[in-house]
């Protein structure tokens, strides 16, 4: 992939942000028919439907509705939950901590598992160890998060009692303990991608002439591994981790639900099931913005790691 400069990346992210705002606004207008009816479902009474239509201002021109939505969103007002009657923003803020903690734990666990596994496989490509490391994480691809979570709960919580079966809260240590199994589930779901790409990147780096040249002139082996192999392999690996952040975040939605963690993901699933439209819309907007932010950050980290990209020059490879 060509490597555009940081500025171009930023411009494109801004366009994406604008489009995300428009798309989330249009959520209720995409479906054919009456949006209010779509929100309330087929069982709702005509009175309730028209009441909601009044409340959401659905009879006004589309542009006016959008400007209204935009001006509120900019001020942090994402509407009011139909089910709970409180503002979506406050609902979300109250639920943010467990989700952020879970995503962070998952990302850290992913890195902690990926680096040694990939290094092990890359040591001797084609060996038995390599085949095992390449094949076993692949099985994780077909491992449904919800089912894996159930199995872990049965084994480590119900039978062995090592970790709580779910929930979150209490002291930080208790919370952290509650996050071990959920983080493991999410990490395993993206491990196939990260191990694969870091392994390939490491093999490529290890075979490069500059590694042979450094070894030949007497650079100590550990330093060759750190400064030459890892440092160069990190660039593509960071990109893969960043690109899969969306997938990781998506999986936390499911995992939170199964482990009964009171986070944003569980809130979203519940809101979908209870047809609480403002919550779904607000959460979608915030999560999408966060993913765009992560991707942008990935790109900037990559530019930081690779001096060839710093001046907006095209990559030589």
């Amino acid at each position: 992939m060509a490597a555009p400069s940081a500025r171009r990346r930023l411009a494109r992210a801004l366009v994406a942000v604008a489009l995300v705002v428009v798309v989330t606004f249009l959520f209720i207008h995409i479906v054919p028919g009456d949006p209010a009816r779509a929100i309330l479902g087929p069982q709702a009474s005509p009175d309730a439907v028209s009441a909601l239509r009044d409340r959401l201002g659905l009879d006004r021109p589309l542009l006016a509705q959008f400007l209204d939505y935009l001006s509120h969103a900019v001020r942090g007002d994402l509407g009011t939950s139909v089910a709970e009657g409180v503002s979506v923003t406050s609902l979300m803020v109250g639920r943010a901590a467990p989700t952020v903690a879970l995503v962070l734990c998952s990302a850290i666990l992913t890195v902690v598992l990926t680096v040694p596994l990939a290094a092990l496989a890359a040591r001797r490509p084609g060996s038995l160890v390599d085949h095992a490391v390449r094949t076993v994480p692949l099985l994780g691809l077909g491992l449904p998060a919800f089912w894996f979570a159930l199995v872990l709960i049965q084994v480590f919580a119900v039978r062995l009692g090592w970790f709580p079966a779910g929930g979150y809260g209490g002291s930080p240590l208790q919370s952290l303990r509650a996050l071990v199994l959920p983080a493991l589930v999410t990490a395993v779901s993206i491990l196939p991608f990260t191990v694969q790409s870091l392994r390939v990147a490491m093999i490529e780096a290890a075979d490069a002439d500059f590694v042979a040249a450094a070894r030949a002139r007497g650079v100590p082996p550990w330093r060759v591994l750190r400064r030459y192999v890892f440092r160069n392999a990190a660039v593509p690996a960071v990109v893969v981790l960043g690109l899969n952040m969306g997938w990781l975040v998506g999986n936390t939605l499911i995992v939170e639900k199964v482990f009964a963690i009171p986070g944003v993901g569980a809130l979203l699933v519940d809101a979908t099931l209870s047809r609480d439209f403002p919550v779904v819309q607000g959460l979608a907007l915030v999560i999408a913005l966060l993913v765009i932010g992560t991707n942008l950050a990935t790109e900037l980290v990559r530019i930081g790691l690779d001096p060839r990209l710093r001046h907006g020059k095209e990559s030589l490879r």
Partner: protein
Amino acid sequence: MNPLLEVDGLSVAAPGRRGTTYPVRDVSLTVEGRGTVGVVGESGCGKSTLLRAIAGVLPRGLRAVEGTVRVDGREVDTRRPSGEVAMIFQDPMTGLNPVMTVGEHVAEVPRRRDGLGRRAAHDLAVHLLQEVGIEDAEHRVDAYPHELSGGLRQRVLIAAALSGSPRLLLCDEPTTALDVTVQARFVALLGRLVEDRGLGVLYVTHDLPLLGTMCDRIDVMYAGQVVERGSTREVLQHPAHPYTEALLAAAPRMDSRRARLVSIPGRPPVLLADTAGCRFAPRCPHAVDACDAAGPLGPGTSGHESACVRRDELEARSERGVAWR
């Protein structure tokens, strides 16, 4: 006194699906201090593999199975670098780590291996960059490889190679990717380093005319073996092996234009197992039945060695400058 580099009966094996191949088979050669030895041959003749084996950086899957490599009389392990030889590669871009500055490359070994202080290592780096003829070294020391031209990168590679104070410099086609004028300056620099530092240089290339301008002695490699060896003058003026002659005849020359060049039909063989006889015979215009039982290198009339059974005829003919059948 021991020669600086002494390779004795070295074979490198590459196990593969269709059996083990030998990119280098029973090669012996020596390089003296302050000496430049050239190794020439087509691609796929095992020249690069030979260099990598000496440097202890064979690519994955290859290993030295027979023979010894001695540097300064001491045997070195071909499985790991000895630190006394340094190597520079054909493509100066891929030879440098793209995420490290020029200074980091050059100061690394003094600082990390030899324990020099930060300041001293930096000063040494600048000094080495100046020694290889990089102007404005104080400034360039902070540049990244992609910011330099090909010629400068190649100089940085040499400076980095010199940073470990090696006795022997292995060059793997270092100028193939460079322009002629840059190549000429590079060769001049190499000559100066040989003089100033008493370096030994083993220089691999497929460019015979280039070797003529810089080497004391030449080893001609074909299919993993040395087929002719001697002083540069002897090898180039009186080639005693048809392969050397063919390489010379294939190179275009400035002084006889529009003559037909002689191309060598076929291509170098893959060496599955020990093959009896001359490996060049199937492509050789002068092959006779005796070639099937050709032996190792032997001295010819003028004293330099050739593996060809008809080396005496060949030498006599090239001295008289007449066509030969």
